[in-house]
């Protein structure tokens, strides 16, 4: 290539992948925006009527499932943080030679199909399965108690399925910490608790931030756990979107609902990013 055209090289590298993302991510979003403003049915066809009122309609109609999804996803994010932090901490600071093996043990279960894992949980949590069955025969639970079809089952399933997305970024952040900083803190008479709260934890914040997003975003849109482990009372917004699109073919409503979800996620992420001051967290 001649020297004069050297500036073109990066664009040649970018065009195929960039075009793919534009054609199959950006364009579909625009199409979906336009579909959300149309009226009609699958049989008669849709016409553009700039029907903006579909937005307040779907928001009021599905606000219950909407807030339920946000609530579940928030609980799941906190649960994975509480379970994941000690795991990541132990591997990063106490793993020694076995760091990689331990990390592998955490990731390995997730090389099994998502659906098969979730179906296995259905079996484990079954009313007379070995967990509940044992507890019932020991008299710790009454025969009528059940976990499946409750919010607890859906939240446990989501927590299980998204745990590694929390552990990995936490591990990366903790593993990078220069232990001499923690020693310096204790040398300067910080108690271990103070050293943890004021040195380790702030340095782990990029991991907490990344992990929270990696868990919250897929969890809020998930519908598999609610479908397999839940009941009619645990329906999430993902289930509604899927049903409107695939079963009832209510494309405008489903599209509008997708946009509301997307907007909610982006707004929450922006607020969260501002709260943890993540300008520098994400630039790396």
């Amino acid at each position, binding site marked *: 290539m001649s020297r004069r055209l050297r500036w073109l090289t990066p664009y040649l590298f970018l065009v195929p*992948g960039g075009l793919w993302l534009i054609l199959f991510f950006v364009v579909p979003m625009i199409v979906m925006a336009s579909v959300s403003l149309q009226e009609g049915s699958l049989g008669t066809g849709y016409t553009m009527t700039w029907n903006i009122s579909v937005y307040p309609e779907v928001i009021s109609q599905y606000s219950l499932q909407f807030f339920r999804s946000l609530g579940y996803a928030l609980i799941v994010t906190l649960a994975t943080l509480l379970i994941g932090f000690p795991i990541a901490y132990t591997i990063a600071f106490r793993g020694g030679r076995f760091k990689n093996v331990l990390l592998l043990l955490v990731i390995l279960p997730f090389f099994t199909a998502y659906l098969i894992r979730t179906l296995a949980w259905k079996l484990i949590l079954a009313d007379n399965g070995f967990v509940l069955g044992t507890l019932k025969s020991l008299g710790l639970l009454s025969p009528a108690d059940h976990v499946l079809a409750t919010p607890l089952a859906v939240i446990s399933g989501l927590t299980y399925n998204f745990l590694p997305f929390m552990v990995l970024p936490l591990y990366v952040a903790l593993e990078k910490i220069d232990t001499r900083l923690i020693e310096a803190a204790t040398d300067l008479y910080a108690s271990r608790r103070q050293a943890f709260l004021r040195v380790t934890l702030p340095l782990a914040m990029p991991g907490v931030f990344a992990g929270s997003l990696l868990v919250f975003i*897929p969890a809020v849109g998930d519908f598999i756990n609610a479908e397999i482990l839940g009941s009619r009372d645990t329906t999430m917004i993902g289930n509604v979107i899927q049903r409107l699109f695939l079963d009832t073919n209510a494309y405008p409503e489903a599209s509008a609902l997708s946009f509301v979800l997307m907007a909610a996620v982006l707004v929450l992420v922006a607020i969260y990013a501002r709260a943890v001051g993540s300008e520098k967290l994400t630039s790396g």
Partner: protein
Amino acid sequence: MTAAVPAERAPATIHRPPLGARLSRAVLPAFTAIAVAYLFLPIAVMIIFSFNDPLGRQNITWQGFTLENYLTVWGRPDITGPMLNSIIIATVTTVISCVLGTLIGLALTRYQFRGRGSLNLLIYIPMATPEVILGASLLALWVSADVQRGMPTIVIAHVMFCISFVVVTIRARISGFNRSLEEAAMDLGADEVTTFRKVTLPLIFPGILAAALLSFALSIDDYVVTSFIAGQTSTFPLWVYGASRFGVPPEVNVLGTLIFAFAFTMIVLQILWGRRRRAEDQALAKEGQA
């Protein structure tokens, strides 16, 4: 650190976590062990029930040990057909997304150009979009354009959500190595293509391999996006989901177990390979010093 600590215990002291020595000594490892057991619980259930000999369609109570499922699964085209589709889709997706993603990764780390910010946005936003929306918007596109859904639309969707992950993985790898190696090759008269083939590619190859494994895993396991745009084509996750309403036969556990065993072997091989390479590098470095 105090002088009273014996020399051979010094490293342990350095790594000692700050939140209560006693706590971290016993409680944290115990917690981690329980957590690992928890992570493997559903896998154990899957493997155990692949050897079950169920009475009816429902494979939910233990009836007795059999190896039969491992033989009968190959005579069930209703299961192996979707599995084959999934493998084909994952393979094609991996190749395309790795090529496109590596090119973007190279451009982002190597060159200055206008529009870097919007490109970053274009790469990160698909990762920050719930899958159900990715699937829904693609369905809206294909319905509006009146395109028949099937294998090609599945591959298009899978490549779309894999590219971002490939770029991020490759970029982490490229930013970690020294450009002087490439400059040295150019100084010694290698042209750009030769430098890329003999220096750059071997250096970023572990990154590409990791990205390929990730793409393959993401693609073969995808249910959500695929469910929107599969048309009449069935993939393994779609089949399992459909079957889960009536009872999943043990053959599904067999395939799940085999995939797990395959992934396990691949990862162990990769670790062993990485370890050997590191040992070789160290040996070379020693030779160089001598």
